[in-house]
Structure formats: C-alpha cells, structure tokens
C-alpha cells in the first residue's frame, strides 16, 4: 500500500506541480490539486504506464481522489 501511494504521489507531484505534503488519500485531483479534466486523463495514462495496467474509460471516470487511484491500483495488483 505504502509503495503504491509513494509511486502515485511522485507522479502527481511531477505532473501537477504540487507539494508532496498536499497529496493525501482524501485529496481530490480537481478540487484540491488544481487539475483540469485533461490533467486527470493524463494522470490516468501515466498510472497505466507506471503500473503496467489498462484502466478502462468507465473505471477512469470513477477516479476522483488520490485514494480512488491507490485503491483501484491495489485492487488490480
């Protein structure tokens, strides 16, 4: 779990230019981390590459917070 969160956090920090301290499981990409819709699409693309998995469009739409992403990835691994 920690490892997944760590890797997800690194991607978010790189992509959205936020501080690591802002990234927690409850943080919403759009409301708390300043991402627009396209940023979220790109984040999901990077998560797919990082964790070598395919995230369907339907599943991707449900990912709104850092916790959603981490839970999704843990569920698939």
């Amino acid at each position, binding site marked *: 779990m920690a490892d997944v969160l760590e890797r997800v956090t690194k991607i978010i920090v790189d992509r959205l230019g936020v501080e690591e301290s802002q990234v927690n499981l409850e943080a919403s990409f759009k409301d708390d981390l300043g991402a627009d819709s*396209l940023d979220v*699409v*790109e984040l999901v*693309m990077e998560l797919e590459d990082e964790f070598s998995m395919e995230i369907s469009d339907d599943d991707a739409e449900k990912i709104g917070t850092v916790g959603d992403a981490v839970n999704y990835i843990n569920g698939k691994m």
Partner: protein
Amino acid sequence: MKLHGKAVLVTGASRGIGREIALELAREGADIAVNYSGSEQRAIETAEEIKRMGRQAIVVKADVSDASDVEKMVKDTIQAFGKLDILVNNAGITRDNLLMRMKESDWDDVMNINLKGVFLCTKAVTRQMMKQRSGRIINISSIVGVMGNAGQANYVAAKAGVIGLTKTAAKELASRGITVNAIAPGFITTDMTDKLPDEVKEGMLKTIPLARLGEPSDIAKTVLFLASEDSRYITGQTLHVDGGMVM
C-alpha cells in the same frame, strides 16, 4: 525538407487525394503509414513509391468506422515508427441521393466512415500525441459541408460535422501542443469527378472564380502547410481550397 523524420498516418491513402497527400508528405521527409480498407494492391503501390524516395512506409488495413480496427492501426503505426506526429483523416465515401430517395443505410454508412471515423482516429492518436506534447491532426472536410449540396445530405452533414469536431478537438488539445485543422476542398479532379458529364463539369466551372477544377496536389500542398512548422499558430480552422467558390 519540412517534415524530416516525422511519422504520419494517412487514412484512405491508397488512391485519390489521400494517395497524393501521402506522397507529398513523404517527399518532404516524412515516414508514412498508408491506411486502406479495400484497395490493397494500390495501397502497396503507394507504399512502394514512398520507399523509393528513401522513406519508411507501412500499409495498414483498417475500417475507420470500427474502433478496434482503428486502435490496432494506430498501435501498428506507433510500433513501426516509434512515434506518431501527424494524423490526416482523409478516408471517406459517398452514397449520393436526393433526401427523399436516400436509404437509412446510405445515411449510416456515410456518417460512420466520414464522421465517426474521424472521431475514432482522433481519439486513438490523442494519447500518443499528448505524451509527446506535440501533434498535428488534419481533417479533410469538404466545401459542401460549408455551403450544402443537393443530393448529398448524408455527405454534407458528415463533412459539416467534421468542421465542428475539428474546432472542439482543437480547443481540447491546444494546451498539449496539438493543433487540429480542417481543409474544405472544392471540386477536385479524381476518379469520381472524371465520370461526370461535360455539361455538369461546365456548370461547376461557372461557380469557380479561378475557373478550373482543383488538382489533388492543391489539397496535398495545403496538408503539407498544416503539417509543417509554418502553421504552428493556426488551430481550429477550416481552410477552403476551392478556387474561390465560397468566400
């Protein structure tokens, strides 16, 4: 050369305007994926001609209205060239008839290939282009999509749709360095227009201020411009390449 080392996918590139576009971009240094759906032999001939210029070329069979075909086509292209810089959505068909005589299947076939096909191909290349933070998407619409044309309700609606899709894709993708533009050709000499009776051709000429039909190369040169660095500040536009028919 304006496109040295660029990787390009041209749909419907086995003949007509698409073939001319593929050859023109290859002349300027691009490697080309030649898409076709029916004319395999002519697609291979186009690819061979590109290879003789010292460029890379692959042929990819795909029905652009089929999402899984399109995804595979884009994957194969990226695998072959290691990237994808330019997409030219050129594939299209006609099923002309008066509204009252037009079959539902004629409407659906034209919409699926000429409009849905552009959506599917654009969607499929977007991932790669977003990662690259650059890309060019060039959609071949038609001047009739701007002015309407009796006997082509399906074709006109699809081509007008392409112009709207172009503007929306341009707005969505601009922040990622991807430009999306359309070209609206007028009457271009192809197998299709060659078959028209002389009096119809003469009637057409009266509506064209430059008083000649267009050549496929007139369209190919415009694609080259929109694919090159020269047009980097242009997005969401539809260029009329029609001898002045619509102003």
